[in-house]
């Protein structure tokens, strides 16, 4: 018998082992739910699968009687739009500043301390300030997400830029590159896949800030809905929404990973080689 540490699962085994905890959790839930409902059919805490299906049907398939809209999709669209715009804007700003900081010591000396200071402000603490300054509309939600993730993205990109071997930058200069061309042809293309990595890491925080902002002030959105129906103890809607948000987060992450593989084949080979 080999040592435990030397036993590795096969492809099927890995899938089975991966699914097992999910199945167990589901079973535990179903048992607990059936238990509670047997005792009190009006219990709202652990809804049955049928109750989930009914809530989903009401919110995701049937249009709202008053507005004619399907609430679930309105919420999804509103949240994804907010998240997408805020994250894209943050990434663009971070790429620009991170590159400038990484390449130009003069800019780095001026901006680096400020960015470090900003990154230490808890964004939630200045959410009231954002609402006061930018109003309760879309802008303050976007600014909260941007404030939450941009400093992290900048610092990460700056570090990645500084990690590029000095030799490469010297070589580019001996090939006749100006500062501008080093930025354009040497640094920018090498930072783009690293930007995708950094954005993937920051998405968890971005979702957190999105839902927090929606919980405080919004008229639609996934976070708004969860906090709204909390008043009616609507676990039958909250739990599917949480699963849906998780699924969306996973999907966005997967798409970004896929984009990185397709757009930057040289980078993948690099990271697999692991030097």
């Amino acid at each position, binding site marked *: 018998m080999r040592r435990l540490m030397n036993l590795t699962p096969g492809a099927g085994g890995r899938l089975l082992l991966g699914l097992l905890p999910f199945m167990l959790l589901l079973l535990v839930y179903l048992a607990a739910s059936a238990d509670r409902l047997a005792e009190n059919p009006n219990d709202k805490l652990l809804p049955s699968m049928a109750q989930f299906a009914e809530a989903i049907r009401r919110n995701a398939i049937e249009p709202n009687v008053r507005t004619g809209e399907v609430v679930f999709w309105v919420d999804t669209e509103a949240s994804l739009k907010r998240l997408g715009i805020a994250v894209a804007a943050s990434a663009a700003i971070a790429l620009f500043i991170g590159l400038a900081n990484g390449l130009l010591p003069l800019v780095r000396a001026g901006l680096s301390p400020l960015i470090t200071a900003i990154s230490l402000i808890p964004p939630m603490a200045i959410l009231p300030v954002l609402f006061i300054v930018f109003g309760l509309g879309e802008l303050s939600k976007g600014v909260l997400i941007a404030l939450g993730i941009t400093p992290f993205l900048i610092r990460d990109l700056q570090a990645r830029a500084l990690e590029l071997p000095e030799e490469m930058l010297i070589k580019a200069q*001996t090939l006749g590159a*100006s500062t501008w061309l080093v930025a354009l042809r040497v640094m920018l293309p090498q930072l783009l896949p690293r930007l995708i990595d950094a954005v993937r890491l920051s998405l968890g925080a971005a979702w957190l800030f999105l839902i927090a902002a929606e919980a405080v002030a919004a008229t639609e959105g996934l976070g708004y809905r969860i906090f709204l129906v909390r008043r009616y103890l609507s676990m039958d809607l909250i739990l599917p929404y949480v699963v849906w948000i998780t699924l969306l987060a996973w999907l966005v992450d997967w798409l970004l990973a896929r984009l990185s593989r397709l757009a930057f084949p040289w980078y993948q080979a690099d990271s697999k080689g692991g030097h």
Partner: protein
Amino acid sequence: MSAPVPQQPVLQLTSVAKSYGDNRVLERINAEVVAGEFVSVVGASGCGKSTFLKLLLGTEQPSRGQILLDGQPLPQEPGPERGIVFQRYSVLPHLTVLGNVLVGLEMQRAPLLGKLFGKARAQALAEARAMINAVGLSHVEGHYPRALSGGMQQRLALAQALVVKPRFLLLDEPFGALDPGIRADMHQLMKRLWRDHGLTVFMITHDLKEGFSLGTRLWVFDKVRHDPQVPTAYGATITYDIPLNQSKALPPSIAAALNQPAAEFA
């Protein structure tokens, strides 16, 4: 190897010295190098070979003295007048072999976009492909550097540096990380490129045999003066300047003076 006709020197070093604070690394370096010379620079570790390279490269400035390129002061930062091949990290990982050789031509000819189009691009492509062919990488033109062996990466680095026709080429232990067989191939290639392109080359190496077999001139860096109380008081200088045209045999008196382990001479 035919000796070049004496002419106006490409590089002139006059009383060049370099110190970092109280630490004198180089002192009293006087030398002239004419076009077509292949200078091998050898010396023990810590003798200032790398500092000397940085002075020529422009990433460090001499504390005293001056370096002239074609009679003009050498620009104080790396530029297209000099080419460099490092031991590692010389090529751009995000460009293919062709892209790596093309990029120098593109950056010099298109200062705004760094990209060429139409006729200019076709012309640059032809030049790049000729250079890639000269270093024997035509069959992997579309590969990324990551997929190349160490020797092939160094061939690519050479092609990348040479395609923009620098006034002189700096090699910083370029073959140090390669297997002996590959290294021999690279020596052949280097000799051929040097002859075909009429290059002026400085090669830093710690492999004495390599220095002797490749160069037309061998510089040995060492400290002539020594203060046992303050080892950093005096810097190294060119202690031997050996022409290698006539004889490639290693004079025993020099071998003894080099403070190198005997294995290095094998």
